[in-house]
């Protein structure tokens, strides 16, 4: 059991996820307890198949739990409906995925503009190019994802994640599809931006060295979090 920080930005309690495979009920998460304070950088480690992605999906409200609660900035996200959770994500959460999840028919800058456009930001192009500039891709604005290297794609994804100034950044194996050197660059960038913007970082990985850079490391095993 972790110590509960004051005014946690993310709070999960009794978070349980079970799925049916045939007649069998499989418990993936078994009453997970987690509290993250604003500005913290937390890594969740775990072996393949330990349920890391499932946990992240629940914490972001992308999926619904079998039991338990998640609050983000004091809002019980499962008391909201799908659209309510989407709106909350748009306002507060930035994502970086293992497989980048850039939209293939949009250029790099358009990908970064997308969340800004969804949020109704006044000058999406201007803001997007500023953050593209920050991740060092101002020369790649009009390239399509398939014209970019893996590292460049992940930098676009990071730019997209920070573009809306989220309170909370969730990263799912951000270096999983990158070679070691590129991965290190991307991670440097991620932590730099995290520091600059004072964002809370929740990082899911099986990479111990990556986890080392976070202030707190938790291990998911047997459906529970251990520090």
């Amino acid at each position, binding site marked *: 059991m972790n110590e509960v920080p004051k005014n946690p930005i993310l709070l999960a309690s009794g978070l349980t996820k079970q799925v049916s495979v045939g007649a069998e009920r499989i418990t993936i998460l078994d009453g997970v307890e987690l509290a993250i304070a604003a500005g913290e950088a937390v890594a969740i480690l775990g072996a393949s198949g330990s349920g890391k*992605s499932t946990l*992240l*999906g629940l914490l*972001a409200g*992308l*999926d619904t739990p079998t039991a338990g609660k998640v609050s983000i900035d004091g809002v019980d996200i499962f008391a909201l409906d*799908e*659209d309510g959770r*989407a*709106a*909350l*994500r*748009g*306002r507060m959460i930035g*994502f970086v*995925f293992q*497989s980048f*999840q850039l*939209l*293939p*028919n*949009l250029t790099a800058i*358009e990908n970064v503009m*997308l*969340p800004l*456009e*969804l*949020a*109704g930001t006044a000058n999406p192009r201007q803001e997007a190019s500023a953050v593209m500039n920050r991740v060092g891709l101002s020369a790649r604005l009009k390239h399509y994802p398939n014209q970019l290297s893996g590292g460049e794609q992940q930098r676009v994804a990071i730019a*997209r994640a920070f573009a809306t100034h989220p309170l909370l950044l969730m990263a*799912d194996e951000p270096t999983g599809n990158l070679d070691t050197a590129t991965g290190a660059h991307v991670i440097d960038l991620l932590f730099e931006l995290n520091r600059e913007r004072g964002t809370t970082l929740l990082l899911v990985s099986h990479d111990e060295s990556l986890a080392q850079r976070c202030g707190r490391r938790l291990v998911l095993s047997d459906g529970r979090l251990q520090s």
Partner: protein
Amino acid sequence: MMRALRLSLLMLARDWRAGELRILFVALVIAVGAVSGVGFFTDRIEVALAQQASHLIGADLVLRADHAPDAQFAEQARRMGLQTELILTFPSMVSHGEASQLAEIKAVGAAYPLRGRLRIGSSMAGAGKIPQPGSAWADERLMAQFGLKIGDRIEAGKLSFVVTAVLLEEPDRSGDFFHIAPRLLINRADVAATGLIQEGSRVAYRLLLAGDEKALAAFRKWVGTHLGRGEKLEGLAEARPDVRTALERSQRYLGLAALMSVVLAGVAVALAVRRFAARHLDICAVMRCLGASQNFIVQIFLWQFFCLGLVASMAGVAVGFASHAVLAQWLATLVSAPLPPPSWMPAVIGVATGLALLFGFAIPPLLRLRQVPTLRVLRRELGLPGGKGLLGFLLPMGLLGAGVVYQAGVMLGLMVLGLLVVAALLATASGMVLSRVTKHLQAATSASWRYGVANIGRRPANNAAQITAFGIAGMALLALTIVRGDLMDSWLAKISPQAPNRFVINIQSDQLAPMQTFFREKNFAAPTFFPMVRGRLVAINEKPVAPADYAEERAQHLVEREFNLSWATLPQQGNQLVAGRWWDASVAGKKLLSVEQGIAEALNIHVGDTLTYDIAGARVTAQVTNLRKVEWDSFRVNFFVVASPSVLENFPASYITSFYLPTGESALTNELVRRFPNLTVIDVAAVVDQIRGLLDKAAYAMEFVFLFMLAAGLTVLYAAIAVSSDERVYETAVWRTLGATRKQVLLSAFAEFAAIGLLAGSIAAL
């Protein structure tokens, strides 16, 4: 909403750039192009028909009366901006020297004819547009019978006229084929002086009216409440049912072809939207993840499709307009006057069709996109929740089906639809069977074949959809080819170059044998003679009938006038029994009738009813044993009512026949008339030529619309291949990585498509 619209426009531009929307766009352009092109064309055909028909009655509208029509009609018509002209027709004896002859005198004023024109042969200088007062124009028959020359005199009543021209053609001559005596055309100013019109004279008055459509419609409406006894308004529709039938058929075919293009385009749209949805799953999931609401996502796609649909539909209308212009060019050679521009209606209908087509097929899959699990951003394998999504296509397909039935008529429509449904079912079933069978076949063949064939087994639903799409496309194309062949054949057979173009009436029974000899001598096939007795229907099932018993104008008219009744032992060539049976030897001596379907409906006559006719004062009653369908556009002699011989054979009858006279052999008719002076020969060559001309144009139009169908069919094929190509590209890449040669990959793809193509092709051919 503005945000959704703005974003959807951005995405539209991006998707367009990425080539995501091209199939949709092309399919819509084709569908709208076909519908609006045919619409524009049909619009103009209507106008052309109206003009042609008006040439055939010499006006746009005719008010017929058996007495001088009240002056209010002409006054009202002029007030409404219509041109008017009163003409009188009456039979009278005319004489030249010692000889005299019954003639049909027609008295006309300066504006005659309001539509079409008079054609004269040899004439005196200054004969004018119509006969000047004191002069007359005689038709060829009257000239021949009296041996007249231009400048000779002819007497009618108290007046003597100078013959100043030979009258060859009057636009309104074809009105009544029967009881036409030779024509003498005079000036209306002379009528009174002839002293021929007295109380009790049989004078037919016709007030010719011409003007624009609005004024005509207004007059029609006004006159409806003012017609008195013996007064009747006749318009274009009533004028030439044969021309009308021919054109309606071609229009129906064109409409059907256009609609089939829409059906095909619908299949292409459905496939393309499916692909679009599959390729936008990620976008939806990512947008949901980035904070977009479900409604917002749907809004974005709806706006995107609306804009796409609007632009594509307008492009389609442009294509339709351009293609109709080509059609109209052909048509223009047929119609003398310049055509007024087509209305905007086809454009509106075209755009509506495009949007309805797009949304009909796009909304179900688009609405499903909102259900994309957001978790897909973390777990790619998550797709749309279950459900085949086929149900969503039933509604638009059903609506299109209803359209097909409406266009093609119930029988043909249901037949076409039935074939399509059978093709779809067969294709689906055989696609599934193919998947099963291929699983067993794999062991026996080379790697490439095995892989290609195995693909079919691994994507059963996708391939069933592909086979169905291919099958439907092929089926629709074949079906329409067959329908077209049928239509054209039946027309060409009916209006073959040898279709009768002369009718001979008033033949007496003792002239039948001499006439046959006459035709043989001239090396013509002896024509078939049909007996004809005139009678008026007075009772149905012994209950007297009167015009007032019927609401419909046509029915009233049918009861009012005398029918030409005929008798026969065998049904006439080209007639088709639709109810009851024809009489044979076993019922010889029984009094039986065969009635044409159309008037049976108008007068509410059924098989088993008895009809009583008044024939020259005697009453004859007989029972209806069958109803017939008659092709009025065949130019053969046809009768509304045909009796068994025993009903009419004791009444004095005259005979009628028709034959084909090649152009340039008019000497034969002249000789025929000289030999048998009482005969009336009616020349319908001009009318036949007109109709054949129209049908030729219609045939061109069909070829043209067929191109749209072909294009739509190709789009379907392309869309079907594109749907699976995404997957194929990936698999091919994996295969190549594992060391497959290019040849092996191609062979594998070939195996898969060959199997699918073979199956789809055989289903279509079935």
